[in-house]
Each structure stands twice: as C-alpha cells, then as structure tokens.
C-alpha cells in the first residue's frame, strides 16, 4: 500500500490534472467550507450582482463540510467538522466552479455529470471525504482564518481555515471529466439483469 500523496493548497493546475480516480491524497493549506444551500445561493447572488464573496474563492479548495464554529476569547474556533452530501448542490455548483475556477471541491456522495463537466473546463477535481470521520477530519484543523456570514446557522457559514494532513481523501471525479460516481452507477445498471438472474437462480435452489 502506497502512502497517500500529500499536496499543497492552493492546488496547482498540474497537481489537479495529475490526479487519478481512486487515488488517495492528503492536503495542507487553506480550505473553504460550508454545508448550506442558502450559502451557495448567496454566493450565486453575489456572482450575479458582481459582488465578491467575503472569502476569496478563486482557485480555492471548496468543500461541503459541516462545522460547528463558535467565537471564543481568541476568535473563532471550530469544534468539529465532517462532510455533507454534495449532490444537494448539483444545480448550483457548475456556475460556482466555473466562476472561481475551483481546483478542488469535495464532500461526500459526489456531484453529477454537469459538475464533472465544469470541473473538466477549469481543471478541477472532486475529493470524497469519509462520512462519519469527524474525529479524524477535525484533527487536521490548524487555525481558523475567517468565519463569514455569521448570520447563518453554524454549519451554513462560509469558513476558511488552515489544515494539515487533511484526509486521506479519495479522488472521485478527476480533472478530465471522469467520475467514479457515474462509472459505478453505469456499472450497477449494466450488471442489474445479471444480478437479478442470479437472485432468481438462488430462489430456485431455496
């Protein structure tokens, strides 16, 4: 077993283009996280009005992670963090990916073909996080850089932080338009009849 590749953020275009489906990576550097549909909507509204978001998203690592942030004497701290289902944001992500040329996005459950196409256009990848990985993922947080949109629920806020050794994360959509999710869904569909036949055979023997 080879150790996961450790990559620096912001991810270079070369690094993004070099990543292969199923490969595992760990990340060092700044990331931006949110788990909110209203957050994505506010980012889109900003794009349409020509207003920059309060946290720079250009070429950013933008992840669907829910986090509990609270303000303490030394500023904001994040108590825990974990991925949320990315497919909720399918319709909103292509425009965000293209506008900010996001090099890596991620969460859990993947994104659809429209998002994979947008990632291919800008040379970006989707990274799959471990659901139920809060103890491991939270341990990679080094410091909170900024918490924006504090009016929102904690997990909806836009938060940027410095991480070290975040992961391992699985490359699930590469920068060339290939998606493990699409491949696996197609594979399941094509195996369906064969599997049903095997079930019928097993029922016959029962």
């Amino acid at each position, binding site marked *: *077993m080879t150790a996961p590749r450790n990559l620096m953020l912001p991810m270079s275009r070369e690094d993004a283009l070099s990543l292969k489906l*199923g490969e*595992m990576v760990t990340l060092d550097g700044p990331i931006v996280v949110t788990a909110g549909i209203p957050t994505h909507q506010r980012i889109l509204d900003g794009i349409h009005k020509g207003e920059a978001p309060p946290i720079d998203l250009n070429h950013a690592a933008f992840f669907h*992670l*829910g*986090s*509990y942030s*609270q303000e303490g004497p030394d500023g904001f701290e994040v*108590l*825990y*963090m*974990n991925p*949320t*289902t990315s*497919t909720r944001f399918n319709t909103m992500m292509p425009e965000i990916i293209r506008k900010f040329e996001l090099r890596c996005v991620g969460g*859990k*459950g*993947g994104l659809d073909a429209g998002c994979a196409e947008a990632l291919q256009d800008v040379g970006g990848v989707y990274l*799959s996080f*471990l*659901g*139920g*990985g*809060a*103890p*491991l993922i*939270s*341990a990679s947080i080094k410091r909170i850089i900024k918490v924006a949109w504090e009016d929102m*629920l*904690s*997990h909806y806020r836009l938060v940027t932080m410095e991480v070290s050794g975040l992961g*391992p994360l*699985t490359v*699930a959509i590469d920068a060339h338009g290939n998606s*493990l*999710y699409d491949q*696996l*869904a197609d*594979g*399941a*569909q094509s*195996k*369906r009849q064969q*599997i*049903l036949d*095997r*079930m*019928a055979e*097993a*029922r016959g023997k*029962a």
Partner: protein
Amino acid sequence: MTIHDADITKLTEDLYSWALRKVPDDTKAALSAARERETNETARRTLNMMLTSARAAEEKDRFVCSDSGVPVYFVRIGTRAKWDANIKSAIRAGFEHLVETIEPPLLKHVTNPLTLERGYAGKDMPIVTYDLIEDADYIEIVCSPKALGSGRWAAMELFTFPTMETIETFILDVAIKAGSQHCPPVIMGIGIGGTFDYCAKMAKEATLRALGTVNEDPLLAGLEGRVFDAVNALGFGPMGTGGDTTVLGVHANYAAGHGFTPVAVCFNCWINRRTRARIYSDGTVERLE
C-alpha cells in the same frame, strides 16, 4: 419502587449522547470482517479509516459525525413494569436538557418541513414510537438518531399479490437509486406486508437488529442472503467510491396483510447509530448497547 419522569429523562438524554460517540460493537465487527474480505485497495483503506474514526470517537469522547440527526426513540414498555411518569414529556425534557448541556454543542438539524427553518426543537420532536413487551418488568428504550445522509434514500412501494421476484427486484432498485449516496456500507432494513404505516415501522425496526444474527423465518433468511449478495455485487463500495462492500447487513421483517403488499426499504449509514438500555422498576439502568 417505581420508574419516574426523571429516570426516563436522564436515560433518554444519555442514550442520545452515547449514540453520537460510539459505533455499536456488532457494526465495528462487521466493518472489520468486511475489511478482510474486500479486494479493492481504496475500499480497504476507507474501511480502515472508518474503524480508526470509530475508535478515535470512543477514546477521545468525540462525535463520530457532525450531523447528530434528529432524536428518534423506540420505547417498549414491559407490562409488569411499575412506572408513574409522563413518558412522552420526560423524553422531550431529556432532549431539551441535552441540547442545553451537551459538549460539544449540537448543530441545528431539526427542520420545519413547511418553512425549512432549522433549530433544536420542532413539532412532534423527538420522534417516539411505543410498544409493549408482555410480562417484562422493565422499559426498554432504543435511541437511533436519524439524518438526511442515509434517511432520504428510503422508499416504499405498494404491490398487489407480488411474487418474491417482484419484491426483491424493487429492493435492488432502491439500492441502485441510493447508489454512492448513503455513506455505505449500510445496514438495510426491509418491511414486507402489513399496512402502509406498519410496513415502514417494520423496516426501521429491522435495522435495529444485531448484525450477524440469522432471521428466524427461513423465507426471510433466504431473502436477506440474496439481497446481501446482490447489493454488494453492485460495486458501489465504502463511501460509494467502489468496492465489494456496499452493505453490512440486510434485515427483513414481515407481517400478514391484505393482498395489497407494501414493501419498505430504509438504510442506516455505516456508523449505524443505535443505543439501547433497560430501566427496571427499581430504577436500575442496564445499558445493552
């Protein structure tokens, strides 16, 4: 001695807090066994990370997942238990106290479905179902917090006089639709028959059965084995990025019904949140899982 409100409040609060920090032992054993069988390297590593995360949560007293779900309880009252308590409000008080005091604090996940507003409280929260246990001198309570990640992929269809083939095809198609989404490897609960409402309840209760146990009904045991092999053959794998392990267990319940046959399928994600305890008439608490 008698079971009082405060006993129920304390116990249901504890059950929720425990459920957030501990992956059940049977589930860890199933993950570990799957890791040995798994032929896909990425999948093996993912299963390994799951076990590491589960261990870290227990050792460091952390939440396994940031999404604490909504509180769901199953209360079974022994018909010989002695109790003098407003069980429903005692459970509500337990959750309210948990929200106020738990460390680290919970995120707001209780959602009003009509306005999409989220908070810590809402109509009919916590969700509690009640049942009786003949002759038992205790109240048994299971806590199984539920979140969107695996919750939204449940499905039910109503058939008329379906064959086993029709039923199994439907179950497989629900698994195909859920695909990579529900934090696999999952535990599948299946309900067959009864009525619309009862069928959903049977499916959910099936997920609470211990992994590795064999269904007492031979017809259902057969179905469970076939569905287990079939869903794992789909190839979605741990976290849906490919592999041999998409399901850890398939558990089915059935009830007689009329010729219209509901079939319900639901999922628990790999952390399979579930805690269970009994409280006896003298106030003694026995934690079972």
